[in-house]
């Protein structure tokens, strides 16, 4: 590998490691497939025809570029808290405006083109909140491939609108009852399917985790978020933002926003994990970097929520999309290097931010980016008024309205 000195953007190494993290910890049955995938992705990314097709779909199908929006009333709200003395400008990178309602489509379009290129005829995916499941079902429909989505039974219950959406798109949704029935269990089951159906099946992983080359590949497909942000912010302000911030489930929207800014030291970078009931509550949160330690799961070494015997904990978050005991390996490395600051936000803080954003901006955010917004609400009032923060508004909250109604004590008839 030709390493440019002083760049944080050259990982992973040829064995798939970001420092200590990442790698290819998979069963032998999958190893040849992963090597084949790595080769196929390497070829595709250098192929102008592949890039052109992806760019065209991103524009005409997904609706890119997504808007960069100045959230004026939230900014005013934060300024009012300081008596008008402080308060950075709050900007939203509006990934919730994409087709299917989140950033997940960016990755799915890239991977479905790769699957087709590799001659695969069946798509499988795992999903937590259902946004990745919906995006996978969507691109599978668009390319005429059968799609099987694994989703924890608990998540099937709390994300009903998305379950119906996937079915409407022609996907088969398989509820997974093992473990706590959340994202990690769905990923286990997807891996079991893949190991069984190696010949024809493409595993469309939804976040920047899993064995190499997935973390790097998903990051590359999501980096459009940060690349556009950089251009759009420059067009608006003629400079770089002072801070960028995103929520962390497996870390795909976050790494997509962060990666183009890693070598700009004047830009502060924050990742917000799910603090659940509080990071001091045993097994009551899903903040794997704040409250976990390194281990090996789902094909990569990374920070994990686990007990002293190396058994993985289920974790907890109000948000199904953040309810994962691990995190993409590049984030683990960025944490250790200190380039990115990772902080938790609790269920309650996220819920408050969800409500506030809806009322003040007329934008109902998904519960996942509501965690990042909760931290913005703490951060902005501490910064000068001539500073700016860009938040990745990774998805819209339509999928969450039923469960939020429940938390707020309202009753709604379910769909």
């Amino acid at each position, binding site marked *: 590998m030709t390493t440019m000195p002083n760049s944080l953007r050259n990982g992973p190494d040829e*064995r798939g490691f970001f420092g200590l993290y990442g*790698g*290819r*910890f*998979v*069963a*032998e*049955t*999958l*190893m*040849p*497939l992963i090597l084949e995938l790595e080769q196929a992705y390497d070829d595709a990314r250098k192929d102008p025809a592949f890039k052109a097709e992806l760019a065209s779909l991103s524009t005409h199908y997904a609706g890119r570029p997504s808007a960069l929006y100045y959230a004026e009333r939230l900014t005013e709200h934060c300024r009012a808290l300081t008596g008008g003395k402080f308060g950075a400008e709050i900007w939203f990178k509006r990934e919730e405006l994409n087709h299917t309602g989140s950033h997940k489509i960016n990755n799915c379009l890239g991977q479905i083109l790769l699957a087709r290129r590799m001659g695969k005829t069946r798509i499988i995916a795992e999903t937590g909140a259902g946004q990745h499941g919906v995006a996978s079902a969507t691109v599978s429909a668009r390319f005429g491939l059968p799609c099987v989505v694994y989703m924890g039974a608990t998540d099937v219950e709390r994300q009903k609108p998305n379950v119906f959406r996937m079915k409407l798109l022609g996907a088969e949704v398989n509820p997974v009852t*093992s*473990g706590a029935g959340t994202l*990690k269990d769905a990923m*286990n089951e997807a*891996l*079991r399917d893949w*190991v*069984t*159906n*190696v*010949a024809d099946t493409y595993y469309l992983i939804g976040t920047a985790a899993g064995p190499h080359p997935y973390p790097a590949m998903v990051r590359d497909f999501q980096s459009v978020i940060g690349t556009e942000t950089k251009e759009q912010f420059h067009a608006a302000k003629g400079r770089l933002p002072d801070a960028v911030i995103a929520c962390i489930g497996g870390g795909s929207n976050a790494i997509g926003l962060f990666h183009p800014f890693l070598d700009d030291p004047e830009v502060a970078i924050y990742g917000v994990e799910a603090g659940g009931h509080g990071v001091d509550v045993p097994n009551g949160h899903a903040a794997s970097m704040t409250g976990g330690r*390194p*281990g*090996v*799961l*789902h*094909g990569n*070494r990374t920070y*994990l929520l*686990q007990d*002293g*015997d*190396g*058994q*993985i904990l289920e974790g907890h978050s109000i948000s199904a999309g953040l309810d994962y005991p691990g995190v993409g390996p590049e984030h683990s490395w960025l944490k250790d290097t200190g380039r990115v600051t990772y902080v938790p936000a609790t269920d309650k803080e996220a819920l408050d931010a969800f409500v506030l954003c809806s009322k003040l901006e007329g934008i109902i955010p998904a519960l996942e980016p509501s965690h990042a917004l909760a931290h913005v609400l703490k951060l902005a009032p501490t910064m000068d008024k001539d500073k700016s923060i860009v938040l990745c508004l990774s998805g819209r909250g339509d999928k969450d309205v039923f469960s939020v109604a429940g938390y707020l004590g309202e009753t709604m008839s379910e769909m």
Partner: protein
Amino acid sequence: MTETRISRRFAAVAAQGRPALVTFVMAGDPDFDTALSIVSALPAAGADVIEIGMPFSDPMADGPAIQAAGLRALHGGQTLVKTIELVRRFRAADAETPIVLMGYYNPIYVYGPERFLTDAKAAGVDGLIVVDLPPEADDELCTPALAAGLNFIRLATPTTDDHRLPRVLANTSGFVYYVSITGITGAAKPDAARVAEAVGRIKRHTSLPVAVGFGVRDAETAREIGRNADGVVVGSAIVQAIAGSLVDGKASPATVAAVTTLVADLARGVAAARAAE
């Protein structure tokens, strides 16, 4: 590598003109004491090599039966420390039957690979199978394990082609575990003819014994598969026999016998494997 309990046992069994019966049980399933009683009863019932599962919360390569066995063990308080203790207690009474620990990397990684190898070796463990450590990750555990005098047994699968096979076999020792299907444990019954062909292919690349597992559930399949293999591995069927013997999720007086009866039957299967048709 020099002679080990594993190589001695495969040689002895081959001299009897039959394949080895390799049995899998989960450490701590359904509780520590019962698991120790089961493991201790396996050699007399006809097991030649014993694989002991190290329970893990997320067994990605296992089907429902072994997943459930792992959960029973974890609910019963099993840990890697106790699994090593189980081997130590077994070894105190049986100096010859090879013991192979099988599982996933994370509990070992958290225990500390070097400390794990020292403790496992001292307890009388002979070999390791770690599902999620392919040859690409040999520096993690395989190379240190070989240095510590433990066998590192690798899985070869239907997707391991001739091009890749030498890489998989390079640091393998003790025996090669051929996974007869693409899939998880306890899945479909393997096709005996295809397995025979694959075993032949592997044997062209190595002089190590080749044991075949995944999907062998009864004496008849054990006999069929054992005709061409040096060993036959049975796991899901055994842990299901344990599951079937439980009363309210706990061991019953029938639990140990449920296992030994099945294993004795499987032993008759492998004994007949090379008999003239």
